[in-house]
């Protein structure tokens, strides 16, 4: 049976395909997939899902390997092998607030898609905060007065800037990572190792 790889849809998917092609793999069936969520190439089966769902498919052994952002891994702590960083998907986690806004002295309210990362960040600082969990467009929260600040990933910083926010502190550097199911890596070692080594070395397969 072909190894199954779960791929995070969207920006990471595009970056992975470019990288995958640079290693000499055929990506045509993946580029032409249309709206299909499961695509077979000659050597692999790919499934496409949201980042957190990629970790679920890998944890349950439906997919052998997964390509997912480290932010998702840090937030959800899935029970998988977290094998290696990939040379794309670079971003950083940052605490941001309204430019010129007052950083209140009382207990602060922080909006984030990443409540666990936020909690850990403030715990290490020794500060108690109230966390408001949002699903997206987190930058809105300080502007509309829902929160005093946000904790979110930043790639270029453009979205923050355009919404009048500034970075107060950066605290994690992330990349995309390759993860593996804990059993698959051992039982299917022979067929997974060449791919993992290619992803790690960044060298074309021979």
């Amino acid at each position, binding site marked *: 049976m072909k190894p199954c790889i779960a791929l995070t849809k969207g920006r990471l998917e595009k970056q992975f395909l470019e990288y995958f092609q640079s290693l000499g793999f055929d990506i045509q069936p993946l580029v032409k997939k249309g709206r299909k969520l499961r695509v077979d190439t000659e050597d692999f089966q790919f499934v496409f899902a949201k980042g957190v769902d990629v970790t679920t498919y890998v944890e349950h052994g439906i997919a052998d390997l997964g390509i997912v952002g480290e932010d998702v891994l840090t937030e959800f702590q899935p029970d998988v092998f977290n094998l290696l960083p990939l040379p794309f998907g670079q971003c950083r986690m940052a605490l941001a607030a309204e430019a010129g806004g007052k950083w209140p002295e009382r207990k602060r309210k922080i909006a984030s898609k990443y409540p666990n990362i936020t909690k850990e960040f403030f715990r290490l600082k020794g500060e108690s905060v109230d966390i408001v969990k949002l699903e997206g467009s987190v930058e809105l929260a300080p502007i509309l007065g829902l929160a005093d600040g946000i904790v979110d990933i930043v790639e270029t910083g453009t979205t923050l800037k355009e919404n009048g926010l500034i970075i107060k502190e950066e605290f994690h550097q992330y990349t995309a990572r390759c993860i593996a199911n804990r059993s698959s890596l*051992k039982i299917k070692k022979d067929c997974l190792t060449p791919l993992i080594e290619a992803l790690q070395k960044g060298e074309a397969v021979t």
Partner: protein
Amino acid sequence: MFLPAGSQDETGQQINNRFHAYEIFGTVTKRRNFEAISTPVVEYAETFTNQYAGMALQSMLKWFNREGEIEVLRPDWTTAVARALVNQPPSQLKWCYQGSVYRSDKDGMESRQAGIEIVHTPVFLGESECLLTAVNFLRELSISEYVIELGHTGIFEELTAPLHLSPAQLEKLRQAMHDKRKDEVLHLASESGSERAAEELTNLVDAFGSLEVIEVYEKHWKSNHRLVEIIQHLKKLAQLLSDCGVDEILVDLGRVKNLPYYCGTMFRGYLKDNGATCFSGGRYDKLYEQFDEQISAVGLAFDVDVLSDKLPFGKEQEKICLVASEESHAYAEELRKKYTGRIVDIRYALHDSDRADYDQIVDVTKLNKEDKVVDK
């Protein structure tokens, strides 16, 4: 009415398979001279969360009792059995158990286990008996497609001992090894200042696979007496398994303990087709230190839910329907004796749609005060 997430009703074959697995387990362990032990479902949380057992309270199903102490539903058998065995005569060396464990971090909260614990027994003998009992049990269940993995806690301990890491750093490194996160292992081990040790630990992440890995590392570590001793021990166990007909044995020399009480050989069984872990266990002498006992202890637990799913649906016994009446019911009951070893159902009427459920249908009628049997 609804069920909480993770809870489920079960019927028919699913239950039959589980009973079958428990029954076979009981027979196999009895034949191998294991004594059954059972511990209560409700215990104090402290039994499992103390520094020796080291389990996380968050994952337990718990509540406060009237005295304000935290009680839990049994989250782990090994720890509970260790507590119970301290009060048992040391002459009994081999123990077996079966029943549920309850954890909120597992699918379904309740999972069924069957396991063995061997105490006061020489190291190789105890570990061999554990593994061969597993092989025996799987064979009796007609499960042949599995892989046994061997590992040892001593390798990581030996390689990290010279690094003088703080407990927090060591725990981070252990977690990175557990996740096979090579970049983090390299980063953390490099902080110790020893490039050689960092490289050694990083390479150890990939030291898993067939028995060739053992051969490679036996040569590689030839100048380290402790590591050679560990490698030769694993090699002997692998040889024993091979001699007893186990085809596929893996080693993972980079495996680290995921509970603090493991201290030596660790084993795990995977089903080949779906990769599910069907058993896991290892040596845990340290667990008994909480009772001021120096005891050799080793054990393993089977995941009975995983095994039950794997069992083929057994051939149904022949099903017979005795169609009787209130008057002929006593005679029909008497007739059961004629059909020993088969499933016999008594009904007063049988709809056409139900006939396909039975292999044989027998009318039991009373004619002229005499009971009659008419095969249909």
